């Protein structure tokens, strides 16, 4: 079983190559880059929307990228049940595109935070998280990562088990609603997360290797 993965490249993406490298380093993945002007995804199993500052974060993070031609295709792909992973700015784009509920706004402490954080995986029953350990460490790197959702939306997410990652160890680095760091859609095939799994795939760079578990999960699910 091989997963055909595509990493979308927007003007201003800066984690696209990290994602490609991380996936190339995994057994069972073939990966290619897809420029945002393209209008077809081809026969992919997984689409990754990488981190960065698409369109310079103008207007709001992800607000302009969501109108890129390829995002229409990503929406159709998600509706057909394809796996979509939005990381950091990719998560922001998924929210702006309406593929996931809520919004990501300026960190409560106003500062850009770039550091490894403790996380808790609160639902291992999704295609992305079957092999993710309950306690893990991944880096975050964002200035606008405070997840906000109203009370109705939050209780719906909770009731449906769609909050898959929370900031743990008594931390909430950006002030997110209920420490939410990652959520899935109703069908479970779209995951948006602020932490960067692709930056935690090689011990050589001083990170954990916890990021690999997300890609291992997908391999098992596919």
């Amino acid at each position: 079983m091989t997963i055909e993965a595509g990493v979308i490249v927007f003007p201003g993406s800066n984690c696209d190559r990290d994602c490609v490298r991380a996936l190339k380093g995994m057994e069972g993945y073939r990966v290619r880059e897809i420029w945002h002007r393209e209008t077809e995804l081809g026969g992919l199993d997984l689409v990754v929307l990488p981190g960065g500052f698409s369109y310079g974060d103008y207007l709001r993070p992800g607000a302009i990228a969501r109108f890129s031609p390829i995002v229409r295709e990503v929406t159709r792909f998600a509706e057909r049940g394809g796996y979509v992973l939005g990381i950091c700015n990719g998560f922001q784009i998924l929210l702006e595109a309406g593929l996931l509920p809520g919004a990501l706004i300026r960190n409560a402490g106003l500062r850009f935070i770039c550091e490894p954080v403790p996380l808790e995986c609160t639902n291992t029953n999704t295609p992305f998280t079957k092999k993710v350990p309950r306690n893990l460490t991944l880096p975050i790197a964002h200035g606008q990562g405070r997840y906000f959702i109203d009370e109705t939306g939050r209780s719906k997410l909770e009731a449906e088990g769609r909050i898959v990652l929370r900031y743990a160890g008594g931390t909430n680095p950006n002030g997110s609603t209920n420490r939410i760091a990652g959520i899935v859609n109703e069908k479970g095939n779209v995951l948006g997360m602020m932490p960067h799994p692709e930056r935690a795939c090689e011990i050589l760079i001083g990170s954990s290797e916890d990021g690999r578990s997300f890609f291992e999960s997908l391999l098992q699910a596919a």
Partner: protein
Amino acid sequence: MRYVVEVHLKPEVSDPEGAAILQAARALGFDFLSDVRVGKSFEIEVKEGTEEKELEVLSDKLLVNPVVETFRIRRDDD
């Protein structure tokens, strides 16, 4: 013809930037402030005859994230 679209965070969304400005203003001795909320505004030149309704559609679709923001449109006749 010009319109101005003013965008603010909804009242229930906390605004740390506004809070920091409030604190700074008080530190400077401006003790008459009780709250500060930061927003942004778009000055938009439009063709003659453009209706405010069209700007509402534009705001909903692009300028504003209705999950966290509200907006107000006013005509700028200066």
